[in-house]
């Protein structure tokens, strides 16, 4: 695989406000990259700079190895789907797709063929004579994708394309979109603030926070080996404890953060010989599992800081151990999955 897109040292300032601070990332040919981060971290800004819809204050954009920093958006050969879809409301579905082809002076017969092709690709052929307002959110989103694909772009940019859909449709479209991307093998950069979306769809996740990139890696890498407490906390659920560094000797002024995901904590009955004694503070039903909030008992064998622990237990285990609110059980940490961070502060600061 060769590299198709690269952003190098991108900084974007709005007056004195820094929206992006020396950000670098790349996308391979055919790769599905997710830009993931909390609201306001600069994901959209980065995407728009890649598209050329915004100029970077500093840094360079390379497309296919060539410097495209100053290239006009219309010359970058990409398709884009905006959060609002930005379908032209006064044009029918097929006209929306036709517009770009017409401006490219594609002959009529070829245009019709191409329209039919992309409509079929996103499975929306039946609605081609409707206006966008007459379509559901999911259908509009598909039209937007069809429109973006019609000109056979080199890469596809998606800005939170699923966020306007309700949860059920979102899951379905997620699968469709990923399949489509696989089938076409088109390089795709998608912005999202939904970690689940990123984990399920991406080949590569770029995790951002506060105008900076925190980590770049495959979903497995960022989930299992988060570089920082921020990434650990932002992606998936995680339990974090601060412990005195001193406990493991070394510098007395420094603290250590220990982090472990709920699925790496084993729940044992109160009668079990090993494990840490905890009290059940809260129970949440999640369908196939229960999520328990637990607190260390005063007489338990270890002393951690007073953070609560979150654990997921399957329904069968839940009934078997007869877990009740206020009841006592034991937990066992899977030490090989424990993640450690150093920090100066007492509380885990998510940076």
């Amino acid at each position, binding site marked *: 695989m060769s590299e198709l897109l690269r952003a190098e040292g991108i900084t974007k300032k709005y007056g004195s406000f820094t929206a992006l601070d020396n950000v670098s990332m790349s996308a391979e040919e055919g790769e599905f990259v997710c830009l993931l981060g909390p609201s306001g971290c600069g994901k959209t800004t980065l995407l728009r700079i890649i598209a050329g*819809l915004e100029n970077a204050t500093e840094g360079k954009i390379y497309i296919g190895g060539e410097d495209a920093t100053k*290239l006009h*958006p*219309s010359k970058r050969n990409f*398709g884009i789907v*905006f959060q609002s879809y930005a379908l*032209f409301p*006064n044009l029918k579905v097929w006209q929306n797709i036709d517009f770009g082809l017409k*401006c490219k002076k594609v002959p009529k017969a070829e245009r019709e063929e191409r329209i039919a092709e992309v409509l079929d690709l996103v499975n929306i052929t039946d609605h081609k004579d409707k206006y966008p*307002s007459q379509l559901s959110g999911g259908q509009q989103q598909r039209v937007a994708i069809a429109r973006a694909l019609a000109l056979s772009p080199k890469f596809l940019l998606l800005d939170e394309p699923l966020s306007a859909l309700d949860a059920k449709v979102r899951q379905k479209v997620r699968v469709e979109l990923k399949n489509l991307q696989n089938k076409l093998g088109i390089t795709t950069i998608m912005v999202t603030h939904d970690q689940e979306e990123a984990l399920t769809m991406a080949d590569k996740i770029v995790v951002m926070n506060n105008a900076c990139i925190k980590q770049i890696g495959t979903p497995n890498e960022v989930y299992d080996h988060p570089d920082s407490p921020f990434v650990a906390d932002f992606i998936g659920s995680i339990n974090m404890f601060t412990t005195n560094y001193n406990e493991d000797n070394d510098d007395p002024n420094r603290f250590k953060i220990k982090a472990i995901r709920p699925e790496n904590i084993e729940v044992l009955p109160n009668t079990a010989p090993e494990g840490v004694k905890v009290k059940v503070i809260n129970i949440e039903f999640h369908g196939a599992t229960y999520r328990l909030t637990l607190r260390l008992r005063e007489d338990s064998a270890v002393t951690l800081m007073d953070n609560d622990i979150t654990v997921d237990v399957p329904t069968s285990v839940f009934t078997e151990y007869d877990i009740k609110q206020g009841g006592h059980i034991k937990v066992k940490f899977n030490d090989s999955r424990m993640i450690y961070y150093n920090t100066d502060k007492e509380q885990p600061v998510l940076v």
Partner: protein
Amino acid sequence: MSRSRLTDRISPAEILQRLIIILSVVCFVFFLIVPIITIFSGVVTDSKGNYVGMENFRSYFANPSLLTAILNSIKISVVTTLISVTIAYMLAYAMNRTAIKCKAVYKYISMLPLFVPTMVHGLALTYLFGKKGILTSMGVDFPVAGEVGIVIAEVIYTLPQAYMVLMVALSSTDYRLYEAASAFGSSSVRSFFSITLPGSKYGLISAATLCFTLSFTDFGAPQAIGANYPVLSTSIYKYVVGQQNFQMGAVIGVLLTIPAVISFAIDRISAKKAANNEISSKAVAYKITPSTGRDIFYQIFCTVVSILILSIFLAVFTIAFIKRWPYEKVFTLEHFDFSSKLVGSGISTFIFSIKMAAITAIAGTLAVFLTAYMVYKTRPMPMLRKTIHFCSMLPMALPGMVVGLAYIMFFNKPFFDIEALQIRVMNPFNVLYQTMWIMVIANIIHMFSTTYITASTALKKLDKEYENAADSMNIPFYKIMAKVSIPMCITAVLETAQYFFLNSMTTISALVFLYSPQSKPAALSLVSMEDNGDFESAAAMSLIIFACNVGMRIIYEIVNKTLAKRMSRWENPKQAEKTAKKAA
């Protein structure tokens, strides 16, 4: 850098955008900034162009009749504002908060004064109360010429404008406030003073500043009925047209501009505050509580106001169709045959007006939308686009007469002497002098701000990603503008065009300095007809203008309705629901 690299950075469409942006800056410079500078430099120079400092002002204030003119103008405007805003408020209140019958009829009647030049209101008063007036001959003795007449005419002129502003202010409120008030046992009078009035505060401010500026700068009404009562607008006319004293004209022009600038500032500030005070989306629409006494009062009030407005038009009809009131009370159409009259050039002025108004409407709408589109929907040249935005808002602070005077001072110069360089530069715009085009440009600039606000409000409502999506597909901006943006705000386009047309047909203030015998609009022919005491022809001409404007308005309404229906298909269902509710 090689040629291909350069066109990579900028697409051809973007080059076009840059050209349009530069072109509109150039237009603003020559048709707005330079004329304004010319008028201001006229203030501090003598007739030969030598710098004299504040000398012109000094001689102005040394002239007692001019001092009187200022005081008179202020007096007229204050009284007009008080009366007009009060009546307009009560009308708007009646429409929104009472259950009176025939609301639509009252609404249309109160809009009628918009369809004729302001001179007509003054003329009509003469037809009613003048020496040979209709009511005078019936024994009513109400000497209206002068102060009283001007105020009445200005009230009629400003009423629809104040009414429209206040309609908006009173139509939006949160009924929950009234429910809460009545739960606390507050009387309806108290609710009015504690909720209704404060709730329409910004509307009142903007209606008042509007009325004040309009009546302060109006030329038509004082010209028609002012007799020898001096006000600023008629003084500036006398100095410039009568004595060719441009210096004194410039001084009066500056004085005329002051209230407009102040209102402009007040209006901007209060608009900003009003935006912060917007009623919540959860607001409940006002429910009209039954109250027979209130309804009877407002029914009578609205009827009286309507009758007064109608009587103005009735007077014009009577004079236009009667041979010679009060001597020969027989029906005739001869006043509509202008060919027998030497004065006012007759029907050709009307044809000229139609032509001018149509060109203004088309060119103006084009210019306004193109400008607003460049400012709000393009990326290049941010500083220039900000400048354009500023220039677009500037004409709001310029009275029509000042625009006209600035134009004549700038355009009639065949050349400029640049003393420092000892060179003489031809004035290329001098060719426009005394043509229709100078009037078209003056009209467009004069009405630019209002229409620009309409256009930009409509464009701002559109998703700003349309242009970005278009860029990604290599669709040039003019195609997206023609196929998407403009069709999406076609109702605003029509509104703008009809505003330009209507106002070009009726305005005289900007044109009074610019016309020539060969290029003379109908509204201005009224001035010379009145000067010559040819009241019958003036009435006939007023009616023709009126009929034309009403006809145009009807066409506009029909087209608008048809388009609105077509456009409802494009709206998303939620929005369509809202529109439907609004309509109901």
